[in-house]
């Protein structure tokens, strides 16, 4: 496992994650996500415009992986429709489970593709998927 390369990118992302870590003024959707075994705990806020995700942000505590994953997800989905965002969630979760391997599909995940080999750190998989499950939950309520 090239831990160094995955992890150092994630930490970079994490350290930059500040720009997405905040409250939105008037979120349309607020969804909490928990990871009981780690104690990770995030709150996702979404601002919709029709069925487009106009803005998104998060608050909460968690490790570099969950924070970076959340932040990358937010960068990715901003400006997408709900349908597109849900599709991206499926690609991401598929990538983690090694079910989606098609390069072209994976490239749609942009930076988040760095998490492709997180299954080499099985204890950390849950950290990587927390935000994505939370988003799915949030959007399935719409």
């Amino acid at each position: 496992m090239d831990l160094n390369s995955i992890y150092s990118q994630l930490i970079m992302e994490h350290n930059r994650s500040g720009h997405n870590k905040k409250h939105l003024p008037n979120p349309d959707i607020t969804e909490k996500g928990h990871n009981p075994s780690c104690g990770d705990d995030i709150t996702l806020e979404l601002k919709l415009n029709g069925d487009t995700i106009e803005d998104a942000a998060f608050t909460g505590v968690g490790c570099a992986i969950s924070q970076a994953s959340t932040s990358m997800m937010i960068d990715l989905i901003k400006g997408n429709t709900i349908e597109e965002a849900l599709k991206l969630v499926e690609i991401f979760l598929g990538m983690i489970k090694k079910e989606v391997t098609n390069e072209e599909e994976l490239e749609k995940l942009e930076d988040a593709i760095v998490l492709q080999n997180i299954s080499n750190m099985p204890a950390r998989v849950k950290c990587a998927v927390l935000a994505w499950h939370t988003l799915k939950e949030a959007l399935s309520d719409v």
Partner: protein
Amino acid sequence: MTRINPEIIKKDFPIFNQDIHGRKLVYLDNGATTQKPLQVIEAMAGYNKIAHGNPHRGAHKLSVEATKAYNSSKETVRKFINAKSTEEIIFTRNTTESLNLIAYSYGREFINEGDEILLAISEHHSNILPWQRLAKERKAILKYMYLNAEGRIPLDEIKNKISEKTKLVSVGHMSNVLGTIHPVEEIIHHAHRVGAVVVVDGAQSAPHMKVDVQEMDADFFVFSGHKMLGPMGIGVLYGKKEILEKMSPFLLGGDMIEYVYEQEATFAPLPYRLEAGTQNVEGAVGIKAAMEYLEKIGLDKIEEHEKELTQYALDRMLSLPYIDIIGPKDLEMRGGLISFTIDGIHPHDIATILDSYGVAIRAGHHCTQPLMRFLDLHATSRISFYLYNTKDDVDQFIEGVKNVRKWFGYGS
């Protein structure tokens, strides 16, 4: 089908490298516990030498390796009995704990006053006592199916005893005294028609024949590692997912929770919810190695081999007029264990004297006192085979029996 060669198999089992009282070991107590091949002993030692850690949630390599070992064992068990998913596989300590878990976590929730719990009279104590306690607690009624003279459960008995009131049937797949293989498919079929849940005690079957829990349609299926070349201290509880999901936890503690507050807690999903505290990873590694060993040889071949030995032993034993066989005298629906008595000699004396000839058998009530009472016996002697037994073992046993008779002053 090529036969298995037990002489070659025996070489894998270090236990046979020793003499017992100066004679070669003839091990015919496989119904009680089985011996381990080097492959199992070394798998466990190997785990302890290079990969041991506390699984789950550990971020370091040893913990990750231990988690992998544990999960991969579950997958091996799943395949071994053809369960749908590893969520349906719960590791316990042994068959006894598996049965207690069901009685506690399923029984206390779903058995109510006046409901009937049905067993066969041939059950092992481990498959009687938990239901006695449950019946008492829930004011339910405990009933038994009785056997015919051949030691089988007649179809009529099944039909008569299973009624609309029956909520749970728990039955041994193969009797550890009679060797009878009970018609679990029939029982399940009739039980399901009235909506009852069926527990199959596979302690004596899973080690010796191919079991497919989906085909059998058992709701629960339980067995022990130590009776199938695996280690002591690990057993299996299979349950259909939709049933396990309805059950409350049994043991409570670390690793089976989600959130814990001072006054209450929420529980993790299956299978973790039913496994509390640090799990026996070494045991899981051992049972996996044991199943792999059995599958490499082939359960169909093992069954065939045991049938052959059983036929051979029955033939030799039936030719001795002072031996009584307790259980079916033919091969139909029976496994590789034979209970017997010898005129005028107590089973314990038989076992002790045979031991002096290196022949290990079991004598006693075999944890089946209600069956003994039903058969009007105090005890029996029992031989039970496995893949490493040979015709020569049977011959030595028969020689031993003749000597036992001589010791007691009988002509042979």
